[in-house]
């Protein structure tokens, strides 16, 4: 009798176990990888240290990561240093001691976080750098080739101000933070490209630290000092709107060319092209980068490098040039859509 009871109990529990485990199996068949790959993401810890939150690029990337975090059940923490290099360094040091499974870093300067990235790698934590290239490669880099980007901007500028254009050939360069790769590789590209075009000369080369109001102040002065200025090369849309405003105030819209670049957000890119604020725009499609970043994180979590930092993968973003002529309905993306529907 007792044996019988025991047998019943075992049978019942086995049946229940089968029932319980067969539920999801029935819903989604195992293709041999999908279950394994999503299980590898569950419960992992992903940390993201942007330069700052609150602008299109970082918001788009974060939206992508948040989506994956929800879908796969990994834990995403975002530490916002709000433009302070030191606060960012503090956040990364802190994270190294917390030992997450991957750190995503958006470095404000080439050098500032180099040592910290190396330290994180040395502590066994894989590092993905996004958008701005640091001197340390980490495990994955997702972002544009800044040299190529500046070459493209300069070429469009040369078209407008160069030989046979009948213009003065005077141009101004507005850099961001000087120690930032955009500015550092960008200025090298601009100078190299202009070598073949001696008719074009740089009359002003200043840094506005990514700040639109600073850019506005500098541009106003430059326009006053050079009434025959032909164009501005700006290196980031959110800053370059300051230049555009200064040109508008001087009543020279259409006369002074603005080559800008950025993440291709509808408001910052296409709307400005449409309104004539920007003359040309090189987009590195932050929405696409968000997807690249999601995939890079997934890849690292599924296949953690044995020695982080030993082999580095470069996922350079394809660039596209947007002008009034080349602009289409899907040239840009909208932040609220990315937030709602994912990249």
């Amino acid at each position, binding site marked *: 009798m007792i044996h019988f009871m025991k047998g019943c109990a075992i049978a019942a529990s086995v049946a229940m176990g089968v029932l319980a485990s067969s539920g999801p199996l029935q819903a989604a068949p195992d293709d041999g990888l999908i279950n394994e790959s999503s299980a590898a993401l569950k419960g992992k810890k992903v940390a993201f240290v942007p330069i700052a*939150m609150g602008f299109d690029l970082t918001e788009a990337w974060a939206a992508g990561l948040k989506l994956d975090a929800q879908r796969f059940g990994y834990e995403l923490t975002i530490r916002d240093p709000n433009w*302070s290099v030191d606060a960012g360094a503090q956040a990364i040091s802190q994270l190294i001691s*917390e030992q997450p499974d991957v750190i995503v870093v958006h470095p404000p300067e080439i*050098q500032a976080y180099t040592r910290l990235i190396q330290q994180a790698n040395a502590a066994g934590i894989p590092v993905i750098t996004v958008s701005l290239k640091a001197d340390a490669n980490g495990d994955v880099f997702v972002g544009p080739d800044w040299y190529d980007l500046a070459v493209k901007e300069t070429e469009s500028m040369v078209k407008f101000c160069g030989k046979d254009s009948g213009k003065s050939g005077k141009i101004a360069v507005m850099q961001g933070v000087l120690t930032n790769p955009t500015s550092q590789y960008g200025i090298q590209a601009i100078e190299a490209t202009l070598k073949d075009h001696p008719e074009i000369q740089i009359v002003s080369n200043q840094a506005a630290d990514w700040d639109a109001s600073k850019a506005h102040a500098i541009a106003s002065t430059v326009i006053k000092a050079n009434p025959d200025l032909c164009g501005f090369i700006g290196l980031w849309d959110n800053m370059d709107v300051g230049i555009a405003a200064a040109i508008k105030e001087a009543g020279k819209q259409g006369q002074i060319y603005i080559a800008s670049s950025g993440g291709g957000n509808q408001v910052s890119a296409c709307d400005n092209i449409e309104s004539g604020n920007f003359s040309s725009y090189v987009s590195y499609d932050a929405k696409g980068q968000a997807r690249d970043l999601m995939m890079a994180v997934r890849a690292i979590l599924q296949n953690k490098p044995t020695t982080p930092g030993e082999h580095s993968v470069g996922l350079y973003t394809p660039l596209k040039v947007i002008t009034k002529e080349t602009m289409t309905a899907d040239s840009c993306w909208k932040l609220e859509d990315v937030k709602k529907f994912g990249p």
Partner: protein
Amino acid sequence: MAMRETLTRLRYRFVPDHILGEILAKSWIDNAIPVAILILTLCVLGSMIPGLVAVGSLLGMSAQFGELLLVVMAMTIVMLAGGIDLSVGSVFALANFVTLALFNMLGWPILVVIPVAILCGALVGLVNGILIGYLRLRAFLTTLVTLIIVRSIVDMFILEYAVKVARPTTLSRIWDFISFKRVLGMPVALIVCLAIAILAHLTLTRLRPGWHIMAVGGSRRSAFNAGLPVRRTIAMTYVLSGMLAALAGVFYASRLNAAGSDTGVGLEVLALTAAVVGGNSLGGGRGSVFKAVLGAIIILILSNSLLRLSLPTGGTSAVLGFVLIAAVAIDVKWVKHRDKLQTSVYVSPTFLALGKAPETAEGSASPYALNNLLKDVELIGLGEIDGPEDPILDAAGNLYCGTRHGDIIRFFAPDFTSKEVFVHTGGHPLGLAFDRDGNLLACVAGMGLYRIGPDKKITRLSDQTNRSWLSVIDDSRMRLADDLDIAPDGRIFFSEATIRFDMSDWMVDALEARGNGRIICYDPSTGSTRTIMDKLRFPNGITMARDGESFFFAETWGCCVSRYWFAGARTGQREVVIPDLPGYPDNINRASDGGYWLAMVGMRTPIFDMALQNPGFRKRMVERVAPDEWLFPNMNYGCVIKFDENGRITDCLWDSRGTNHPMITSMREHEGWLYLGGVSNNRIGRYRIPGGDPTWTAHASYRGEAR
């Protein structure tokens, strides 16, 4: 009624009201607020952020902590001298740039680079120091200007060289060690910083330059009047500040190897917030390195937590701003009200029910019956001395007394018209006694027990006793040594009237009526000092009984005389000899007829006796009424009584009008005369004792017993 009285008695026996005031009087109480803030910060943020207080998390912050603490110390040192240094953030950036430029770009050896970078900081500090210390410019504006100028210089260099300085061209093992290595789990920056903190603490608390800084910050004018080099001291604080901020910049360079234009931006506000949150006063003169450390920890944890809470853009700065405002407000209010608060809570009366006061009416049968025998005393040194608490005569008949000015005056025998300052002690000499070798022993209020040889050489015998474990006040120090006598074996027993009040406030002790006093024994054979009885109500006069094994002592607010045996069969026993006196007893001394003279410093009044049973009333009085309106014991009568070994009153002398000798604190019999002293009098009185033995001296009396 009896029930209520018992309850009141128990409440005042077991609730230690006096401790609050004593805690507030401690110098470390200034640290209480920052420590409370730290605990609060840790509790609130620790519950919001999991793992905040974990060891790993704290270690992650340790390098930043080292840098921040250096800058906070820089700010603190300047603030201690009464200034402010806003240029620390710019100096930090300058040193960072100089280090990277010299090392990465020019390839200088790192052991040269670091001193040069610190020197740059020192130079900026020197400019600040000269402008503020020597040319007397306003610290705030001057350092604001250097903040801007140095920042601009750094920005100009960065525009030109930012790219080059960040690329290391040379390798240095020392630099790598500073940058990456941890010793005992701590980064080099933190170790160096802690070493400097200890050094700075020692300098500020133990060394002359540190004391100068505190003095100048406390009161610039007083420091100047005291002859301190005020200008040089102020200038020096800015140089130190520049050097510390520069060193922090060097460590920043080693940590990040980056010369961004936002390096050190806003650091001055962060450091200022930390210094003030830690409890360093903006007004100068009040603060410590420990407070700087506390403040740096609080701010680091706070800023780190805000970072982790991912506040919306600008939220972190806003919170830090609020913290600074709150800290400044607390600082201002605390400095302003601490003394007020302490004074209002310090006096803490307790319950005391004295027995019924004996009759003193003139013509009554009472042994204390009023007379006017002291109305015609001879006066010695009228108007020439102030506060002869205890007159005494030497073997040659010269008269000695202490004065409020800190002297012991000697009047020469036989007529006492000429006098000299025998010695200057520095405190108010109260009880006096001669030992067998002719040395004068003195209890000096505020100082302790001293011996003065016939050659006028002053020797300190004792100024501290054993510290009791549960006392908040440091009761090892002697605050009010009062009267003494010497046992035949050479031990000196002396009373300390109260451990809670200084000489100037001795009468406030009456409002408390707590046993705040004690009797202390100094043993010259071992040099040791021990408290033998405590919790006495203002123990005052002490004199040796003739058995050589005990002494009589009076408790002023207890209105009684007791006897204590320090040797023989009854060692350690205590017995009340006269329980309820009509007044407040002071010194006791031997009389020629085998009895003892006892001075009454004042007389009891029914109203004050009643007030003693109403501690709440006295507390309210102290809190609400100005001190000169307080109800004090009546001190306007002069009275000396004589009692025998058994405590029977055998004689009583009054100055009923209180004109010659109100408030008699002591008396000495010598060759038929009685010499009267009073702690508030400007004279010594001399009264011919009817039938007094014209050959009797105290010396002989004591020598006889020694034989």
